[in-house]
Protein backbone atom coordinates (compact mmCIF):
# COMPACT_ATOMS: atom_id res chain seq x y z
CA UNK A 1 0.00 0.00 0.00
CA UNK A 2 1.58 3.28 -1.11
CA UNK A 3 1.25 6.15 1.32
CA UNK A 4 1.69 9.87 1.27
CA UNK A 5 -0.40 11.13 -1.64
CA UNK A 6 -0.19 14.93 -1.64
CA UNK A 7 -3.74 15.73 -0.73
CA UNK A 8 -5.39 12.52 0.33
CA UNK A 9 -9.15 12.51 0.03
CA UNK A 10 -10.80 12.43 3.43
CA UNK A 11 -12.23 9.05 4.39
CA UNK A 12 -14.65 8.35 7.17
CA UNK A 13 -13.11 5.99 9.68
CA UNK A 14 -15.46 6.60 12.59
CA UNK A 15 -17.28 3.60 14.02
CA UNK A 16 -19.89 3.06 16.67
CA UNK A 17 -19.67 0.10 19.08
CA UNK A 18 -22.79 0.13 21.19
CA UNK A 19 -22.79 3.59 22.73
CA UNK A 20 -19.09 4.12 22.07
CA UNK A 21 -18.21 6.46 19.24
CA UNK A 22 -14.63 5.80 18.20
CA UNK A 23 -12.68 8.00 15.79
CA UNK A 24 -11.51 4.88 13.99
CA UNK A 25 -11.78 1.09 14.29
CA UNK A 26 -8.24 0.42 15.54
CA UNK A 27 -8.18 -0.87 19.10
CA UNK A 28 -5.08 -1.81 21.08
CA UNK A 29 -5.71 -5.16 22.76
CA UNK A 30 -5.60 -5.74 26.47
CA UNK A 31 -2.33 -6.96 27.92
CA UNK A 32 -0.34 -6.06 24.86
CA UNK A 33 -0.02 -2.33 25.35
CA UNK A 34 0.31 -2.00 29.11
CA UNK A 35 -1.21 1.30 30.20
CA UNK A 36 -0.15 3.11 27.05
CA UNK A 37 2.81 4.71 28.79
CA UNK A 38 5.18 1.90 27.97
CA UNK A 39 4.94 2.76 24.28
CA UNK A 40 4.75 6.55 24.54
CA UNK A 41 8.11 7.05 22.85
CA UNK A 42 6.97 5.11 19.82
CA UNK A 43 3.42 6.07 18.99
CA UNK A 44 0.93 8.86 19.64
CA UNK A 45 -2.04 6.93 20.95
CA UNK A 46 -4.41 9.88 20.76
CA UNK A 47 -4.90 9.00 17.08
CA UNK A 48 -5.95 5.42 17.83
CA UNK A 49 -9.59 4.36 18.14
CA UNK A 50 -9.27 3.03 21.67
CA UNK A 51 -6.82 1.46 24.09
CA UNK A 52 -7.87 -1.53 26.16
CA UNK A 53 -5.67 -1.47 29.22
CA UNK A 54 -4.09 -4.47 30.92
CA UNK A 55 -6.58 -6.78 32.63
CA UNK A 56 -7.36 -5.44 36.09
CA UNK A 57 -8.55 -7.26 39.18
CA UNK A 58 -9.94 -5.97 42.42
CA UNK A 59 -6.74 -6.65 44.32
CA UNK A 60 -3.12 -6.56 43.20
CA UNK A 61 -1.85 -9.78 41.62
CA UNK A 62 1.77 -10.82 41.23
CA UNK A 63 1.14 -13.13 38.32
CA UNK A 64 2.55 -16.51 37.34
CA UNK A 65 6.06 -17.86 37.89
CA UNK A 66 8.39 -17.61 34.89
CA UNK A 67 8.93 -18.51 32.16
CA UNK A 68 5.81 -16.64 31.14
CA UNK A 69 6.21 -16.48 27.40
CA UNK A 70 7.46 -18.73 24.66
CA UNK A 71 7.57 -18.23 20.95
CA UNK A 72 5.76 -20.75 18.72
CA UNK A 73 5.49 -20.96 14.94
CA UNK A 74 3.85 -17.67 13.84
CA UNK A 75 2.65 -17.12 17.38
CA UNK A 76 3.47 -16.98 21.04
CA UNK A 77 2.16 -18.44 24.25
CA UNK A 78 1.75 -16.27 27.31
CA UNK A 79 0.94 -17.16 30.88
CA UNK A 80 1.24 -13.80 32.59
CA UNK A 81 -1.31 -14.76 35.20
CA UNK A 82 -3.01 -11.37 35.20
CA UNK A 83 -0.23 -9.56 37.01
CA UNK A 84 -1.63 -6.10 37.77
CA UNK A 85 -1.56 -3.55 40.56
CA UNK A 86 -5.29 -3.76 41.30
CA UNK A 87 -8.13 -1.47 40.31
CA UNK A 88 -7.31 1.35 42.75
CA UNK A 89 -3.77 1.82 41.52
CA UNK A 90 -4.99 1.69 37.95
CA UNK A 91 -7.57 4.41 38.56
CA UNK A 92 -5.26 6.63 40.59
CA UNK A 93 -1.95 6.22 38.84
CA UNK A 94 -2.53 5.14 35.28
CA UNK A 95 -5.90 6.52 34.24
CA UNK A 96 -4.95 10.20 34.81
CA UNK A 97 -2.04 9.79 32.39
CA UNK A 98 -4.32 8.29 29.73
CA UNK A 99 -6.98 10.94 30.31
CA UNK A 100 -4.37 13.60 29.59
CA UNK A 101 -3.45 11.88 26.34
CA UNK A 102 -7.05 12.11 25.20
CA UNK A 103 -7.30 8.45 24.20
CA UNK A 104 -10.53 6.51 24.56
CA UNK A 105 -9.85 3.96 27.29
CA UNK A 106 -11.61 0.63 27.59
CA UNK A 107 -11.07 -1.03 30.94
CA UNK A 108 -10.48 -4.80 30.91
CA UNK A 109 -11.64 -6.44 34.09
CA UNK A 110 -11.28 -9.92 35.50
CA UNK A 111 -12.50 -11.70 38.57
CA UNK A 112 -12.82 -15.07 40.19
CA UNK A 113 -16.46 -14.61 41.13
CA UNK A 114 -19.43 -12.83 39.61
CA UNK A 115 -19.36 -10.48 42.58
CA UNK A 116 -15.78 -9.47 41.88
CA UNK A 117 -16.64 -8.50 38.32
CA UNK A 118 -19.56 -6.45 39.57
CA UNK A 119 -17.46 -4.77 42.26
CA UNK A 120 -14.77 -3.66 39.83
CA UNK A 121 -17.38 -2.42 37.38
CA UNK A 122 -19.01 -0.28 40.02
CA UNK A 123 -15.66 1.35 40.81
CA UNK A 124 -15.14 2.18 37.16
CA UNK A 125 -18.61 3.59 36.61
CA UNK A 126 -17.79 7.11 37.75
CA UNK A 127 -14.44 7.57 35.95
CA UNK A 128 -14.12 9.98 33.06
CA UNK A 129 -11.90 8.85 30.23
CA UNK A 130 -13.19 5.30 30.33
CA UNK A 131 -15.59 4.69 27.47
CA UNK A 132 -16.34 1.01 27.95
CA UNK A 133 -15.70 -2.12 29.98
CA UNK A 134 -14.31 -5.26 28.40
CA UNK A 135 -14.93 -8.39 30.43
CA UNK A 136 -12.13 -10.90 30.39
CA UNK A 137 -14.16 -14.06 30.94
CA UNK A 138 -11.26 -16.44 30.31
CA UNK A 139 -10.82 -16.54 34.08
CA UNK A 140 -11.36 -19.47 36.39
CA UNK A 141 -14.57 -19.30 38.39
CA UNK A 142 -13.48 -20.28 41.88
CA UNK A 143 -17.03 -21.14 42.89
CA UNK A 144 -17.40 -23.54 39.97
CA UNK A 145 -14.21 -25.48 40.54
CA UNK A 146 -12.06 -23.28 38.37
CA UNK A 147 -14.07 -23.77 35.20
CA UNK A 148 -13.55 -20.75 32.96
CA UNK A 149 -16.47 -18.33 32.97
CA UNK A 150 -16.20 -17.99 29.21
CA UNK A 151 -16.79 -21.67 28.49
CA UNK A 152 -20.24 -21.93 30.03
CA UNK A 153 -23.18 -19.97 28.58
CA UNK A 154 -24.94 -19.75 31.93
CA UNK A 155 -21.89 -18.22 33.63
CA UNK A 156 -21.38 -15.82 30.75
CA UNK A 157 -24.95 -14.68 31.14
CA UNK A 158 -24.52 -14.18 34.87
CA UNK A 159 -21.32 -12.17 34.63
CA UNK A 160 -22.62 -9.89 31.91
CA UNK A 161 -25.92 -9.41 33.67
CA UNK A 162 -24.24 -8.61 37.00
CA UNK A 163 -21.85 -6.10 35.44
CA UNK A 164 -24.68 -4.44 33.49
CA UNK A 165 -26.40 -3.89 36.79
CA UNK A 166 -23.47 -1.85 38.07
CA UNK A 167 -22.64 0.39 35.17
CA UNK A 168 -24.09 2.52 32.45
CA UNK A 169 -20.91 2.12 30.40
CA UNK A 170 -21.02 -0.20 27.37
CA UNK A 171 -20.21 -3.74 28.50
CA UNK A 172 -18.18 -5.87 26.10
CA UNK A 173 -17.53 -9.49 27.04
CA UNK A 174 -14.38 -10.86 25.46
CA UNK A 175 -15.13 -14.34 24.25
CA UNK A 176 -12.83 -17.27 24.79
CA UNK A 177 -12.27 -19.36 21.65
CA UNK A 178 -11.79 -22.53 23.68
CA UNK A 179 -15.39 -23.60 23.24
CA UNK A 180 -17.43 -25.97 21.15
CA UNK A 181 -20.03 -23.46 20.08
CA UNK A 182 -19.01 -19.81 20.04
CA UNK A 183 -22.45 -18.74 18.83
CA UNK A 184 -24.09 -20.20 21.91
CA UNK A 185 -21.71 -18.22 24.12
CA UNK A 186 -22.28 -15.05 22.11
CA UNK A 187 -26.04 -15.45 22.45
CA UNK A 188 -25.72 -15.89 26.21
CA UNK A 189 -23.74 -12.65 26.33
CA UNK A 190 -26.41 -10.94 24.28
CA UNK A 191 -29.12 -12.23 26.58
CA UNK A 192 -27.17 -10.89 29.54
CA UNK A 193 -27.32 -7.45 28.01
CA UNK A 194 -23.92 -7.13 26.34
CA UNK A 195 -23.53 -3.99 24.23
CA UNK A 196 -20.90 -5.50 21.97
CA UNK A 197 -18.63 -8.54 21.75
CA UNK A 198 -14.86 -8.70 21.70
CA UNK A 199 -13.34 -11.77 20.12
CA UNK A 200 -11.18 -13.65 20.36
CA UNK A 201 -9.07 -14.13 23.43
CA UNK A 202 -6.16 -16.58 23.20
CA UNK A 203 -6.37 -20.31 22.42
CA UNK A 204 -5.14 -22.49 25.25
CA UNK A 205 -1.87 -24.20 24.37
CA UNK A 206 1.47 -25.34 25.70
CA UNK A 207 5.07 -26.06 24.73
CA UNK A 208 7.55 -28.64 25.99
CA UNK A 209 11.24 -28.30 26.68
CA UNK A 210 12.51 -31.66 25.46
CA UNK A 211 15.88 -31.36 27.14
CA UNK A 212 14.42 -30.62 30.56
CA UNK A 213 11.45 -32.91 29.83
CA UNK A 214 8.93 -30.49 31.22
CA UNK A 215 6.52 -27.82 30.08
CA UNK A 216 8.25 -24.58 29.10
CA UNK A 217 5.83 -22.26 30.86
CA UNK A 218 5.89 -21.96 34.63
CA UNK A 219 2.11 -22.26 34.48
CA UNK A 220 2.24 -25.29 32.09
CA UNK A 221 -0.57 -23.89 29.90
CA UNK A 222 -0.65 -20.51 28.22
CA UNK A 223 -2.63 -18.52 25.72
CA UNK A 224 -1.71 -18.74 22.05
CA UNK A 225 -1.81 -15.45 20.13
CA UNK A 226 -0.41 -14.05 16.92
CA UNK A 227 -0.82 -14.88 13.21
CA UNK A 228 -1.15 -18.60 13.93
CA UNK A 229 -4.64 -18.13 15.36
CA UNK A 230 -6.04 -15.77 12.74
CA UNK A 231 -7.93 -18.47 10.77
CA UNK A 232 -9.74 -19.62 13.92
CA UNK A 233 -10.54 -16.06 14.97
CA UNK A 234 -11.93 -15.16 11.55
CA UNK A 235 -14.12 -18.23 11.53
CA UNK A 236 -15.59 -17.38 14.92
CA UNK A 237 -16.30 -13.76 14.03
CA UNK A 238 -17.99 -14.97 10.84
CA UNK A 239 -20.17 -17.44 12.75
CA UNK A 240 -21.20 -14.93 15.38
CA UNK A 241 -21.84 -12.10 12.92
CA UNK A 242 -24.36 -14.26 11.09
CA UNK A 243 -26.31 -15.17 14.20
CA UNK A 244 -25.98 -12.40 16.75
CA UNK A 245 -26.99 -8.81 16.31
CA UNK A 246 -24.23 -7.06 18.29
CA UNK A 247 -21.24 -5.06 17.07
CA UNK A 248 -18.03 -7.06 17.16
CA UNK A 249 -14.48 -6.05 18.01
CA UNK A 250 -12.56 -8.65 16.03
CA UNK A 251 -8.98 -9.72 16.36
CA UNK A 252 -6.47 -12.47 16.75
CA UNK A 253 -3.26 -12.42 14.75
CA UNK A 254 -3.76 -9.11 12.97
CA UNK A 255 -0.38 -7.99 11.64
CA UNK A 256 -1.31 -5.63 8.80
CA UNK A 257 -4.20 -3.86 7.08
CA UNK A 258 -5.08 -6.92 5.01
CA UNK A 259 -5.63 -8.97 8.15
CA UNK A 260 -7.68 -6.10 9.58
CA UNK A 261 -9.83 -6.02 6.45
CA UNK A 262 -10.38 -9.78 6.68
CA UNK A 263 -11.88 -9.28 10.15
CA UNK A 264 -13.98 -6.33 9.04
CA UNK A 265 -15.28 -8.26 6.05
CA UNK A 266 -16.40 -11.19 8.22
CA UNK A 267 -18.32 -8.80 10.43
CA UNK A 268 -16.05 -6.91 12.80
CA UNK A 269 -16.95 -3.25 13.29
CA UNK A 270 -13.59 -2.58 14.90
CA UNK A 271 -10.36 -4.58 15.11
CA UNK A 272 -8.02 -5.25 17.97
CA UNK A 273 -4.26 -5.37 17.59
CA UNK A 274 -2.43 -7.46 20.18
CA UNK A 275 0.77 -9.42 19.67
CA UNK A 276 1.64 -7.30 16.62
CA UNK A 277 2.47 -4.40 18.94
CA UNK A 278 5.41 -6.38 20.26
CA UNK A 279 6.74 -6.91 16.78
CA UNK A 280 6.21 -3.35 15.68
CA UNK A 281 5.20 -0.70 18.19
CA UNK A 282 3.85 1.67 15.52
CA UNK A 283 1.79 -0.98 13.80
CA UNK A 284 -1.59 0.36 14.91
CA UNK A 285 -0.86 3.66 13.20
CA UNK A 286 0.44 1.94 10.07
CA UNK A 287 -2.64 -0.25 9.82
CA UNK A 288 -4.89 2.78 10.24
CA UNK A 289 -3.11 4.64 7.44
CA UNK A 290 -3.13 1.62 5.17
CA UNK A 291 -6.85 1.11 5.74
CA UNK A 292 -7.45 4.68 4.68
CA UNK A 293 -5.36 4.04 1.60
CA UNK A 294 -7.46 0.98 0.78
CA UNK A 295 -10.68 2.97 1.08
CA UNK A 296 -9.33 5.69 -1.21
CA UNK A 297 -8.05 3.20 -3.73
CA UNK A 298 -11.41 1.47 -3.84
CA UNK A 299 -13.34 4.75 -3.77
CA UNK A 300 -15.19 3.87 -0.60
CA UNK A 301 -16.50 6.68 1.57
CA UNK A 302 -16.56 4.88 4.91
CA UNK A 303 -14.95 1.89 6.53
CA UNK A 304 -18.42 0.88 7.68
CA UNK A 305 -19.36 -0.13 4.14
CA UNK A 306 -17.03 -3.11 4.41
CA UNK A 307 -18.38 -4.59 7.64
CA UNK A 308 -19.57 -8.11 6.87
CA UNK A 309 -18.88 -7.72 3.13
CA UNK A 310 -17.56 -11.30 2.84
CA UNK A 311 -20.36 -12.97 4.77
CA UNK A 312 -22.41 -15.19 2.48
CA UNK A 313 -26.24 -15.20 2.29
Amino acid at each position, binding site marked *: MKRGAVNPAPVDMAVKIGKMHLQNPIILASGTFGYGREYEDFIDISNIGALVVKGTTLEKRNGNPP*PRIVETPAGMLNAIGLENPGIEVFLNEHLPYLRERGVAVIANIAGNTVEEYAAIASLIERQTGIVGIELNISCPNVKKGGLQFGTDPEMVYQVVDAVKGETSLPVIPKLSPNVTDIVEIAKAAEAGGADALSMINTLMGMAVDIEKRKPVLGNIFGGLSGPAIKPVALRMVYQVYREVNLPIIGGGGIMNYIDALEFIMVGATAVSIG*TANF*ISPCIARDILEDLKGYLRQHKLGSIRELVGAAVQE
Partner: protein
Amino acid sequence: MPFLENGLVVGHTRVSEDIYELEFITPRIASECHPGQFVHIRPSLSSYHPLLRRPLSLYDVDKRLGSITVLYKVVGKGTHLLTRVRTKDYVDVMGPLGRGFTLPGTHKNVLLVGGGVGIAPLVYLARVLREEKCKVQVLHGTENQKQMVAFDKLRQIGVEFMPATADGSAGFKGLVTDLLYKKIDPAEIDFIYACGPEPMMELVAAFADQHGIPGEVSLEEHMACGVGACLGCARKLKAEDEEYVKVCKDGPVFSMDKVKLYKKINGR
Protein backbone atom coordinates in the same frame (compact mmCIF):
# COMPACT_ATOMS: atom_id res chain seq x y z
CA MET B 1 14.46 8.05 24.66
CA PRO B 2 14.15 4.94 22.48
CA PHE B 3 13.33 4.87 18.77
CA LEU B 4 12.25 2.48 16.07
CA GLU B 5 14.70 2.74 13.20
CA ASN B 6 15.68 0.93 10.04
CA GLY B 7 19.37 0.32 10.36
CA LEU B 8 21.52 0.23 7.24
CA VAL B 9 23.92 -2.66 7.67
CA VAL B 10 27.51 -1.53 7.16
CA GLY B 11 29.32 -4.56 8.47
CA HIS B 12 28.54 -8.18 9.17
CA THR B 13 31.38 -10.55 9.96
CA ARG B 14 31.68 -14.04 11.28
CA VAL B 15 34.23 -13.64 14.02
CA SER B 16 34.24 -17.19 15.31
CA GLU B 17 32.55 -20.46 14.42
CA ASP B 18 29.11 -19.40 15.60
CA ILE B 19 29.65 -15.78 16.63
CA TYR B 20 28.93 -12.78 14.41
CA GLU B 21 29.52 -9.07 14.62
CA LEU B 22 26.80 -6.93 13.03
CA GLU B 23 27.13 -3.17 12.60
CA PHE B 24 24.33 -0.93 11.39
CA ILE B 25 23.58 2.78 11.19
CA THR B 26 20.76 3.98 13.44
CA PRO B 27 21.75 7.55 14.33
CA ARG B 28 18.82 8.33 16.58
CA ILE B 29 19.16 5.14 18.59
CA ALA B 30 22.95 5.44 18.72
CA SER B 31 22.80 8.97 20.09
CA GLU B 32 20.81 7.76 23.12
CA CYS B 33 22.81 4.66 23.96
CA HIS B 34 24.21 3.94 27.39
CA PRO B 35 26.28 0.82 28.21
CA GLY B 36 24.26 -2.14 29.43
CA GLN B 37 21.16 -1.22 27.45
CA PHE B 38 20.02 -3.38 24.59
CA VAL B 39 18.47 -3.21 21.14
CA HIS B 40 15.51 -5.32 20.09
CA ILE B 41 15.98 -6.63 16.56
CA ARG B 42 13.47 -8.24 14.25
CA PRO B 43 15.11 -11.33 12.78
CA SER B 44 12.99 -11.36 9.65
CA LEU B 45 11.15 -8.54 7.97
CA SER B 46 8.44 -10.45 6.16
CA SER B 47 8.04 -13.82 7.84
CA TYR B 48 6.02 -14.48 10.99
CA HIS B 49 8.25 -17.38 11.91
CA PRO B 50 10.26 -16.48 13.88
CA LEU B 51 7.86 -13.87 15.13
CA LEU B 52 9.32 -11.99 18.07
CA ARG B 53 12.22 -9.57 18.18
CA ARG B 54 15.52 -10.66 19.70
CA PRO B 55 17.24 -8.64 22.42
CA LEU B 56 20.96 -8.01 21.88
CA SER B 57 23.33 -5.95 23.99
CA LEU B 58 25.19 -2.89 22.80
CA TYR B 59 28.61 -4.31 21.98
CA ASP B 60 29.91 -1.04 20.66
CA VAL B 61 28.47 2.31 19.70
CA ASP B 62 29.95 5.03 17.54
CA LYS B 63 27.89 8.13 18.26
CA ARG B 64 29.75 10.17 15.65
CA LEU B 65 28.91 7.72 12.86
CA GLY B 66 25.55 6.86 14.40
CA SER B 67 26.43 3.18 14.29
CA ILE B 68 25.76 0.34 16.69
CA THR B 69 27.58 -2.98 16.74
CA VAL B 70 26.15 -6.14 18.26
CA LEU B 71 27.97 -9.39 18.92
CA TYR B 72 25.74 -12.41 18.70
CA LYS B 73 26.00 -16.14 18.97
CA VAL B 74 23.87 -18.35 16.73
CA VAL B 75 21.72 -20.41 19.07
CA GLY B 76 18.34 -20.78 17.35
CA LYS B 77 16.09 -19.73 14.51
CA GLY B 78 16.27 -15.98 15.00
CA THR B 79 20.01 -15.65 15.25
CA HIS B 80 20.37 -18.15 12.42
CA LEU B 81 18.20 -15.99 10.16
CA LEU B 82 20.12 -12.92 11.20
CA THR B 83 23.28 -14.38 9.69
CA ARG B 84 21.59 -14.04 6.28
CA VAL B 85 21.52 -10.27 6.50
CA ARG B 86 23.92 -8.64 4.07
CA THR B 87 25.73 -5.33 3.95
CA LYS B 88 23.38 -2.66 2.50
CA ASP B 89 20.32 -4.55 3.80
CA TYR B 90 18.23 -2.93 6.48
CA VAL B 91 17.50 -4.34 9.93
CA ASP B 92 14.50 -3.29 11.98
CA VAL B 93 15.78 -2.07 15.36
CA MET B 94 14.08 -0.80 18.53
CA GLY B 95 16.22 0.81 21.15
CA PRO B 96 18.02 1.65 23.24
CA LEU B 97 15.95 -0.26 25.78
CA GLY B 98 16.31 -1.08 29.44
CA ARG B 99 18.30 0.25 32.34
CA GLY B 100 22.03 0.08 31.72
CA PHE B 101 25.08 0.00 33.96
CA THR B 102 25.66 2.59 36.65
CA LEU B 103 28.95 4.38 36.05
CA PRO B 104 31.13 4.52 39.19
CA GLY B 105 32.54 7.98 38.53
CA THR B 106 35.89 9.05 37.07
CA HIS B 107 39.32 7.62 37.83
CA LYS B 108 38.03 4.44 39.46
CA ASN B 109 39.51 0.96 39.34
CA VAL B 110 36.98 -1.21 37.66
CA LEU B 111 36.79 -4.94 37.02
CA LEU B 112 34.73 -6.45 34.18
CA VAL B 113 34.07 -10.18 34.11
CA GLY B 114 32.55 -11.69 30.99
CA GLY B 115 31.64 -15.26 30.12
CA GLY B 116 31.22 -16.23 26.45
CA VAL B 117 29.19 -13.73 24.44
CA GLY B 118 28.35 -12.21 27.82
CA ILE B 119 31.41 -10.08 27.03
CA ALA B 120 29.25 -8.05 24.62
CA PRO B 121 27.84 -5.35 26.93
CA LEU B 122 31.15 -5.10 28.78
CA VAL B 123 33.01 -3.91 25.71
CA TYR B 124 30.92 -0.80 25.20
CA LEU B 125 31.00 -0.33 28.96
CA ALA B 126 34.80 -0.51 28.87
CA ARG B 127 34.88 2.16 26.19
CA VAL B 128 32.75 4.54 28.25
CA LEU B 129 34.67 3.78 31.45
CA ARG B 130 37.90 4.61 29.69
CA GLU B 131 36.37 7.91 28.57
CA GLU B 132 35.73 8.47 32.28
CA LYS B 133 39.42 7.85 32.90
CA CYS B 134 38.82 4.68 34.83
CA LYS B 135 41.40 1.93 35.02
CA VAL B 136 39.68 -1.06 33.49
CA GLN B 137 40.60 -4.72 33.94
CA VAL B 138 38.66 -7.25 31.85
CA LEU B 139 38.49 -10.97 32.55
CA HIS B 140 36.97 -12.97 29.73
CA GLY B 141 36.31 -16.68 29.89
CA THR B 142 35.60 -18.84 26.84
CA GLU B 143 35.97 -22.44 25.73
CA ASN B 144 39.00 -21.73 23.58
CA GLN B 145 41.10 -19.05 21.98
CA LYS B 146 38.90 -18.83 18.88
CA GLN B 147 36.00 -17.55 20.94
CA MET B 148 38.12 -14.79 22.44
CA VAL B 149 36.52 -12.45 19.94
CA ALA B 150 36.60 -9.12 21.79
CA PHE B 151 40.36 -9.03 22.12
CA ASP B 152 41.07 -6.51 19.35
CA LYS B 153 38.34 -4.11 20.37
CA LEU B 154 39.39 -4.21 24.01
CA ARG B 155 43.03 -3.63 23.17
CA GLN B 156 42.07 -0.65 21.02
CA ILE B 157 39.92 0.69 23.86
CA GLY B 158 42.87 0.30 26.21
CA VAL B 159 42.14 -2.11 29.04
CA GLU B 160 44.11 -4.64 30.97
CA PHE B 161 42.86 -7.87 29.41
CA MET B 162 43.08 -11.31 31.06
CA PRO B 163 41.69 -14.24 29.10
CA ALA B 164 40.73 -17.60 30.55
CA THR B 165 40.01 -20.61 28.36
CA ALA B 166 38.70 -24.01 29.32
CA ASP B 167 41.23 -25.73 27.09
CA GLY B 168 44.11 -23.41 27.91
CA SER B 169 44.53 -22.27 24.32
CA ALA B 170 44.73 -18.67 25.50
CA GLY B 171 45.67 -17.17 28.84
CA PHE B 172 44.63 -18.84 32.09
CA LYS B 173 43.54 -22.47 31.77
CA GLY B 174 40.24 -22.89 33.55
CA LEU B 175 37.15 -20.97 34.48
CA VAL B 176 37.11 -17.22 34.46
CA THR B 177 35.85 -17.34 38.05
CA ASP B 178 38.90 -19.37 39.07
CA LEU B 179 41.00 -16.69 37.45
CA LEU B 180 39.07 -14.08 39.40
CA TYR B 181 39.52 -15.77 42.77
CA LYS B 182 43.20 -16.58 42.14
CA LYS B 183 44.56 -13.52 40.46
CA ILE B 184 42.51 -10.49 41.42
CA ASP B 185 43.38 -8.43 44.46
CA PRO B 186 40.02 -7.19 45.76
CA ALA B 187 41.66 -4.32 47.53
CA GLU B 188 42.43 -2.74 44.18
CA ILE B 189 38.85 -2.85 42.84
CA ASP B 190 36.23 -0.13 43.30
CA PHE B 191 33.42 -1.67 41.21
CA ILE B 192 32.70 -5.00 39.51
CA TYR B 193 30.50 -5.72 36.47
CA ALA B 194 29.65 -9.20 35.27
CA CYS B 195 27.76 -10.70 32.37
CA GLY B 196 27.63 -14.34 31.36
CA PRO B 197 26.08 -17.62 32.49
CA GLU B 198 24.22 -17.33 35.79
CA PRO B 199 26.45 -19.72 37.78
CA MET B 200 29.41 -17.59 36.73
CA MET B 201 27.72 -14.36 37.75
CA GLU B 202 26.74 -15.98 41.04
CA LEU B 203 30.40 -16.62 41.86
CA VAL B 204 31.41 -13.12 40.82
CA ALA B 205 28.67 -11.68 43.02
CA ALA B 206 29.86 -13.83 45.91
CA PHE B 207 33.39 -12.48 45.41
CA ALA B 208 32.10 -8.90 45.40
CA ASP B 209 29.99 -9.55 48.47
CA GLN B 210 32.90 -11.17 50.35
CA HIS B 211 35.06 -8.14 49.80
CA GLY B 212 32.37 -5.50 50.08
CA ILE B 213 32.82 -4.31 46.53
CA PRO B 214 29.73 -2.87 44.83
CA GLY B 215 28.81 -4.39 41.50
CA GLU B 216 26.23 -5.04 38.81
CA VAL B 217 25.17 -7.96 36.67
CA SER B 218 23.21 -8.12 33.42
CA LEU B 219 20.42 -10.69 33.34
CA GLU B 220 18.55 -12.39 30.52
CA GLU B 221 14.95 -13.43 30.20
CA HIS B 222 12.83 -14.29 27.16
CA MET B 223 11.13 -11.14 25.94
CA ALA B 224 8.22 -10.12 23.80
CA CYS B 225 7.74 -6.33 23.94
CA GLY B 226 11.04 -5.21 25.47
CA VAL B 227 9.42 -2.13 26.98
CA GLY B 228 7.54 -3.36 30.05
CA ALA B 229 4.14 -3.74 28.40
CA CYS B 230 3.67 -7.50 28.17
CA LEU B 231 4.99 -8.51 31.60
CA GLY B 232 6.56 -11.53 29.92
CA CYS B 233 10.16 -11.16 31.05
CA ALA B 234 9.35 -11.50 34.72
CA ARG B 235 11.68 -13.03 37.28
CA LYS B 236 12.31 -12.92 40.97
CA LEU B 237 15.59 -11.38 42.01
CA LYS B 238 15.68 -13.42 45.19
CA ALA B 239 13.82 -16.61 45.99
CA GLU B 240 12.01 -14.98 48.88
CA ASP B 241 10.68 -12.08 46.78
CA GLU B 242 6.94 -11.91 46.28
CA GLU B 243 7.05 -9.69 43.23
CA TYR B 244 8.62 -10.15 39.87
CA VAL B 245 10.88 -7.60 38.22
CA LYS B 246 10.71 -7.08 34.47
CA VAL B 247 14.14 -7.68 33.04
CA CYS B 248 13.49 -5.46 30.00
CA LYS B 249 12.54 -2.38 31.97
CA ASP B 250 13.77 -2.79 35.55
CA GLY B 251 16.95 -4.28 34.07
CA PRO B 252 18.66 -5.95 32.33
CA VAL B 253 21.25 -4.56 34.72
CA PHE B 254 20.72 -5.14 38.43
CA SER B 255 22.79 -4.41 41.47
CA MET B 256 24.61 -7.55 42.62
CA ASP B 257 23.35 -7.23 46.16
CA LYS B 258 19.73 -7.25 45.00
CA VAL B 259 20.12 -10.48 43.08
CA LYS B 260 20.53 -14.00 44.34
CA LEU B 261 21.11 -16.17 41.32
CA TYR B 262 19.64 -19.38 42.64
CA LYS B 263 19.81 -21.82 39.82
CA LYS B 264 16.60 -23.45 40.93
CA ILE B 265 14.24 -20.52 40.98
CA ASN B 266 12.82 -18.62 38.04
CA GLY B 267 11.93 -21.81 36.26
CA ARG B 268 15.52 -22.78 35.46
